[in-house]
């Protein structure tokens, strides 16, 4: 009897489980039905969206947007590859100026003017074109031509000014630069226009010694009066007279003052002796001989 009761109990449990399963199955079926309904409803809408989207994209494609984008990418790539970072930095620094310039260029009146100029370029009046120099002169009587010339001249003036500023040495590195070429000039500025080096290291005051460049050598530091006598004897001058010494002293003083050896004429002027006397005192190349005895470099120049 006991087993019978047990069996009926488990059967009951089983029955309940099957019931629950059936319910769940019904629920699931209901869900699926709803989903199917939803899909059935949404699909046409999606299709419509797809259709419209494709038409739109096709239209864009036909108008060249994609090709443009692709090319733009290439362009950007090329730009990135070819632009070193420091240039980009410079570009960023001058962005404000660029924008200002663009703004100035896109003022309506400027654009009008450009349009008119372009029109004139497209339809030149060949028959009106001035011929030769006289034609040019005649054309310059026209008021419009004059105004145009004034504008061009003014523009040239600014351009010139700006180019001077752009090439000025680094004293004013932040000075406003011209649109044109300024950035290009900015980089090699350090190496660019060095002020011309002084022509000679020790530039003496312009000495009145015609076409004579200063001597580059210095005076003999070991020179003494005794040494002068020795050199004079070696040159065949014999003993040095007071007149000789006047010339030698002047030559040394003048060399110290001017940085160049005096020529014959200057020796005569400085020592107060006539040229003839200089030639007698130092026969044969007196300028050179006097310089040798005085321990200074040979004089240079033509007089």
């Amino acid at each position: 009897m006991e087993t019978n009761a047990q069996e009926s109990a488990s059967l009951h449990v089983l029955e309940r489980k099957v019931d629950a399963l059936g319910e769940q199955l019904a629920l699931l079926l209901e869900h699926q039905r709803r989903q199917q309904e939803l899909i059935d409803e949404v699909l046409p809408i999606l299709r419509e969206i797809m259709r419209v989207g494709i038409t739109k994209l096709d239209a864009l494609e036909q108008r060249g947007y994609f090709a443009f984008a692709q090319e733009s990418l290439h362009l950007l790539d090329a730009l990135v590859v070819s632009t070193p970072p420091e240039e980009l930095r410079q570009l960023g620094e001058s962005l404000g100026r660029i924008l200002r310039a663009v703004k100035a260029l896109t003022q309506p009146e400027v654009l009008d003017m450009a349009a008119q100029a372009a029109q004139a370029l497209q339809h030149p009046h060949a028959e009106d074109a001035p011929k030769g120099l006289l034609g040019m002169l005649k054309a310059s009587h026209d008021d419009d031509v004059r105004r145009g010339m004034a504008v061009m001249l003014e523009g040239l003036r600014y351009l010139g000014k700006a180019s001077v500023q752009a090439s000025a040495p680094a004293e004013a590195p932040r000075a406003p630069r011209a649109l044109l070429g300024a950035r290009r000039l900015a980089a090699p500025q350090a190496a660019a226009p060095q002020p011309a080096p002084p022509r000679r290291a020790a530039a003496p005051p312009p000495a009145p010694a015609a076409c004579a460049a200063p001597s580059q050598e210095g005076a003999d530091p070991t020179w003494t009066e005794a040494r002068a006598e020795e050199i004079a004897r070696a040159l065949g001058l014999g003993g040095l007279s007071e007149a000789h010494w006047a010339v030698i002293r002047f030559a040394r003083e003048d060399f110290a003052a001017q940085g160049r050896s005096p020529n014959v004429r200057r020796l005569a002027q400085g020592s107060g002796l006539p040229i003839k006397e200089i030639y007698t005192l130092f026969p044969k190349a007196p300028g050179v001989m006097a310089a040798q005895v005085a321990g200074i470099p040979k004089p240079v120049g033509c007089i």
Partner: protein
Amino acid sequence: MSEDHAPRKVAIICSKGGLDEAYPALILANAARMSGIDAFVFFTFYGLDVITAAKVDHLHVNMAGNPSSPMPTMIAGLPGMERFAAKMMRDRMTELDLPTAREMIEILEGAGAQLYACELAMTMMKVKREELLPQVHDVITAMDFYELAEGAQIIFT
């Protein structure tokens, strides 16, 4: 300048009287003397102006027909232009303290360069001996010139 050889010598012929034409002869002669070279200058034809007392201070520069002139020939030919060009050149020379032509002649004499006038040219130009500068050593003929120039290098300007 070696003493073993015969002394070097130059003979310079000055045949033109322009300021720019006279200076080369004068400067070359002076430079020769400054270098210890014997030098003499033979003044002939218009070169006589350089040793004529009344003309030596008024040597002109002819810009007309001179391709190196900064002035177009048409303008250079206008009256007074050579005087103007000469003044410009003279001013520049003064600025550089270059001696004047007269002074150059004096320097040459002091330096021992000898100056000769051409006899034929003097006859042709009707220049008398007393009109020449006192620094002129002598009046000679072309044949005398060759005699004097023996062993010399001849420079024609």
